[in-house]
């Protein structure tokens, strides 16, 4: 049983069924013969569907990349490279995904830009944020739509208006937001929006970079002119077409998907209560699909491993991406939110997906109950 949908989602059955067909339609979309051209048409259909999903009126503003990491790097570095003669000050939250944080840090430590990392509470305090943008004369503001470790939603609408007033480029990492939060890039005043296909039921290998103005950045990958020169390299046809299937699925079922997430969360919490299992939610204002939760009687690592070894249930501590980092490093998100070391050590992330079944959630709770009965006797504080 899989409760780590924030790391990567299972692939939709529709995609698996078509996988071989997509892979056999292998032609290079830049080839001039008919099959090459029809592959190109199919890719452009996905572009139109993505535009619809995020409320972009012109599909040409959608660029396909290899994933959110590349999209984020392209937006962040590309904006600097395009306007490198300006004095840049980038403002972001201290809880961004590393593909935002480390990229901004990299520019900053190389002396190319100044950077400010604001704790989430400051970002949500709009007056304070406004003050910071004005004081730092920020050129670039990057705020994620939904945090990947806690599920916290950020007030993108208000921040977007503020960025527009200050004429500050506004980048939103929507990787954890798509399918969970309704997005309209134009209403939200977003200059660049990024996400990954594999977090929304498609396979790994394709991501999106929306740009309000494609001339606002310098491309990161130069070459054969694909994606109108904005992202060169032979298109990952299979991953893009598969992402198209996922996008159309979301367009059709978005409300149902979100009702399902809410049902999952409600059921999980009610079952924990029913079995008198003590727990604390780290974030109240989170999307329904991601729970950052701690159980006072067991360390998060140990709970994850117990459920994995004994019950074949997969949950996560922190985000998957964090696990490549040194152990102290992956606590930044909760640390930035003010949680203690001991609370952070107890925290696990449980994330639901469209494939999650109520009976799986019941087994998850029974697994936790098992841990509680074995280890719940220590007089925890």
């Amino acid at each position, binding site marked *: 049983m899989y409760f780590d949908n924030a790391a990567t989602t299972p692939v939709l059955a529709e995609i698996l069924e078509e996988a071989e067909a997509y892979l056999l339609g292998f032609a290079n979309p830049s080839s001039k013969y008919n099959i090459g051209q029809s592959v190109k048409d199919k890719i452009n259909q996905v572009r139109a569907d993505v535009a619809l999903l995020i409320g972009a009126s012109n599909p040409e503003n959608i660029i396909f990349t290899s994933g959110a990491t590349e999209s984020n790097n392209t937006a962040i570095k590309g904006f600097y490279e395009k306007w490198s003669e300006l004095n840049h000050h980038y403002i972001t939250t201290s809880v961004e995904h590393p593909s935002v944080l480390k990229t901004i840090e990299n520019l900053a430590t190389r002396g190319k830009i100044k950077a400010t990392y604001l704790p989430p509470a400051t970002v949500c305090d709009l007056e304070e944020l406004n003050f910071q943008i004005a004081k730092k004369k920020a050129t670039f503001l990057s705020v994620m739509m939904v945090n990947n470790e806690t599920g916290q939603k950020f007030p993108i609408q208000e921040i977007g208006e503020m960025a527009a007033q200050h004429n500050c480029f506004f980048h939103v990492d929507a990787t954890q937001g798509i399918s969970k939060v309704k997005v309209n890039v134009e209403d939200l005043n977003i200059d660049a929006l990024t996400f990954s296909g594999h977090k929304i039921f498609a396979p790994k290998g394709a991501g999106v970079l929306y740009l309000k103005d494609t001339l606002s950045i310098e491309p990161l990958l130069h070459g054969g002119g694909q994606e109108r020169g904005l992202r060169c390299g032979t298109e990952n046809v299979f991953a893009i077409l598969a992402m198209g299937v996922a996008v159309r699925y979301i367009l059709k079922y978005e409300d149902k998907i979100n009702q399902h997430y809410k049902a999952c969360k409600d059921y999980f919490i009610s079952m924990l209560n029913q079995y008198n299992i003590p727990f604390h939610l780290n974030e109240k204002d989170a999307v329904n699909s991601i729970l950052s939760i701690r159980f006072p*009687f*067991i*360390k998060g*690592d*140990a709970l994850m*491993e*117990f459920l994995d*070894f*004994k019950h074949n249930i997969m949950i996560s501590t922190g985000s998957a991406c964090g696990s490549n980092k040194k*152990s102290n490093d992956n606590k930044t998100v909760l640390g930035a939110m003010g949680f203690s*070391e*001991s609370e952070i*050590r107890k925290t696990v992330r449980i994330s639901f997906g469209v494939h999650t079944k109520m009976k799986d959630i019941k087994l998850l709770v029974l697994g936790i109950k098992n841990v509680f009965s*074995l*280890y719940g*006797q*220590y*007089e*925890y504080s």
Partner: protein
Amino acid sequence: MYSDKIIAHFTAPRNVGSLDDFDVEFELGNPACDDRVQVQLKLSKDGKTVEDIRYKAYGCATSLATASIFSSCIKEKSLDEIRGFREKYPELLGELEPKQMHCLDILKELFDKTLNLNQHVL
């Protein structure tokens, strides 16, 4: 990453809990990584055998397994036998990865606290 022995004890720990009637009680912990074990021992009348043991633990998977392995190792054993185990304690946990090594210290301390029984008699 984990040996079968660690997994077996971690997922089905032996002797967890508390004793209504015990002779010795001690607690130990590693503040750096926040591992803790509370132990209760029931000794034989002559004080030379551990008749029963119960413990409660909090910590990483390996430290939880360590407490369980320790408990099943000394239960119903004489202090002499326990001293024998104490000598070869690094073998008791099986193969460990570097990040699990700190549990050897926990195990050693568990033995030491047990063998210095008098200090802890209530």
